[in-house]
């Protein structure tokens, strides 16, 4: 049994110190099986196996650009002090995995995980939050995330969900964004029986910014729900929602987007877009864009579409010798890429590109024994798009 399976761990998977950031001197490699393999991306990673927080987080750790500690058995706190710019992403991997001796074979796992991220004034951090499972384990994961951004702080929150069809995830995110701070969230749902992502972002100061992105690719009988509420509590705040998804087979989903502009929140700019491709007649989607505005000097818009692949574009591509299968895939990828391009962290964009391409080819299932399913991704690097 590898160390990882014993329920560790902090795995600072990359030793090299970056300028201004202390090396992860306390590297505790969690075994090669769980090594983070986002190519070209240095990360600090932290694995949360079957709901057990790493024991050795009891005290604060030296040598990391943040403080990480347990507040309770199920609550993890990450704090970045004022002015600290963390240039390596922190990767938090929630892994649902059958353990030979733990008796979760028949009953399934029921995990409640809570995470709080606090950024001091002007601090910067990127968090990659992955929820993964092996192929069989039945699990229900309730993830509560609390984000607090002091003025001028920047936080990118990328949530990646790739779990088997017997797993369900209910993510609930609450964020408070102070003046001049910026929060970017992206929920990327690649596989899972039921994936529910709910977020509420409060913009509490002038020039606070939020962008909420979502990409969901579901098939079979998978279900995906995204619910976003962005509250403009202060004037001069900006927000954007962009959610796109592709539904195949009998998959179904729902989007509820809500922009609330408080009385007096003048000069608000808020944009909301939800676009969906249904590949079959049985796939279903409901979309509910919603703007609630109590100020009169604002720019707000919303748009929602549910449609099919563009037949004219398919014909055009086939006229150039591209097979129907490839043409469909190319169009689907182009559709998804609009979200991926917005992530803003190039190695993550590339990694996600490979995962999405594999997903569209039907190769990416929840998954192999690696937490990030990356073993085959390099083979895809030579594809034409």
């Amino acid at each position: 049994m590898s160390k990882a399976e014993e329920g560790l761990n902090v795995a600072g998977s990359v030793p090299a110190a970056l300028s201004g950031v202390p090396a992860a001197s306390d590297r505790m490699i969690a075994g090669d099986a769980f090594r983070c393999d986002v190519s070209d991306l240095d990360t600090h990673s932290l694995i949360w196996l079957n709901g057990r927080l790493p024991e050795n987080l009891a005290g604060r750790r030296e040598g990391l650009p943040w403080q990480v500690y347990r507040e309770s058995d199920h609550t993890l706190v990450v704090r970045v002090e004022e002015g600290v710019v963390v240039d390596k992403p922190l990767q938090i991997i929630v892994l649902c995995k059958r353990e030979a001796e733990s008796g979760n074979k028949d009953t399934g796992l029921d995990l409640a995980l809570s995470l709080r991220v606090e950024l001091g004034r002007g601090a910067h951090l990127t968090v990659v939050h992955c929820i993964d499972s092996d192929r069989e384990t039945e699990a229900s994961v309730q993830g509560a995330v609390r984000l607090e951004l002091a003025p001028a702080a920047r936080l990118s929150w990328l949530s990646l969900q790739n779990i088997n069809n017997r797993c369900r995830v209910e993510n609930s995110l609450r964020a408070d964004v102070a003046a001049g701070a910026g929060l970017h969230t992206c929920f990327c749902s690649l596989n899972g029986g039921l994936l529910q992502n709910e977020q509420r972002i409060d913009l509490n100061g002038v020039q606070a910014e939020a962008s909420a992105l979502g990409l969901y690719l579901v098939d079979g009988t998978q279900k995906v729900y995204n619910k976003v509420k962005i509250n403009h509590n202060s004037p001069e705040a900006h927000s954007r929602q962009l959610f796109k998804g592709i539904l195949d087979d009998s998959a179904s989903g729902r989007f509820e987007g809500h922009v609330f502009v408080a009385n007096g929140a003048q000069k608000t700019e808020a944009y909301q877009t939800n676009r969906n491709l249904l590949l079959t007649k049985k796939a279903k989607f409901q979309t509910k864009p919603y703007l609630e505005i109590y100020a009169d000097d604002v720019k707000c818009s919303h748009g929602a579409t549910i449609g099919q692949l563009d037949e004219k574009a398919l014909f055009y591509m086939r006229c150039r010798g591209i097979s129907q299968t490839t043409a469909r895939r190319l169009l689907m990828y182009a559709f998804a890429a609009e979200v991926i391009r917005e992530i803003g962290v190039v190695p993550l964009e590339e990694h996600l590109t490979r995962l999405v391409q594999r997903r569209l080819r039907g190769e990416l299932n929840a998954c192999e024994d690696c937490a990030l399913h990356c073993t085959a991704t390099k083979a895809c690097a030579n594809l034409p798009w």
Partner: protein
Amino acid sequence: MLLEIKDLHASIGDKEILRGVNLRINEGEVHAIMGPNGNGKSTLASVIAGNEMFTVTKGEVLYKGKNLLDMSIEERACEGVFLGFQYPVEIPGVSIASFMRTAINEQRKYHGQDPMDMLEFAQYMEEKQKVVELTENLAKRSVNEGFSGGEKKKNEIFQMAMLQPSLAFLDETDSGLDIDALRIVAGGVNQLRRKDNAIVVITHYQRLLDYIVPDFVHVLAGGKIVKTGPKELALELEEKGYDWLKAEEGL
């Protein structure tokens, strides 16, 4: 004989558009098809390319001796049939470079060849861009997205240069072009004329034929080719219109 169309009838829904087209095209020839609007010129090009909106109800099309109508759209393309679109389609998010690389590699795969490597492709593309003075900048943009009319048509001829088809139908490649763009696009087409290929230009205007000089001019009216002549026929049509022909044919 490169292409032989025999008594071709095609419909969209209940409406018959092609009503017995006969046409023979040899390698090395340039043909112009003219005719009034709504009489089947674009439909003929679409049917040759395999557009599934149209149903062929009668007739036969032999391409290099094979039954073209049995082939899928992409098979026809891989066998060397090219359609230059009157209204090129926008494909947001797919760059011209990746679109062309996919097309070339799919065609190579069809012929049992290995994919073109990145470097070779880049050089090849750079060379072919020159045919229609397509800037590198444009090649990085999404296919036809936000292109002007002229850019779209240049892009069609650029794709033709890349794919080197044996038979190209160019559907109103001159529409929406200003004089300069027309000269560039027509010049591109002329560079692509070879002894072993054939080009069919569909146009309303004699002007294009000043640049791309055809061997034959056909008039398609009422779903049939009603008259075929040398390049001078285009001048006559420019002068007299189509009514005299319609009267002659009793249409």
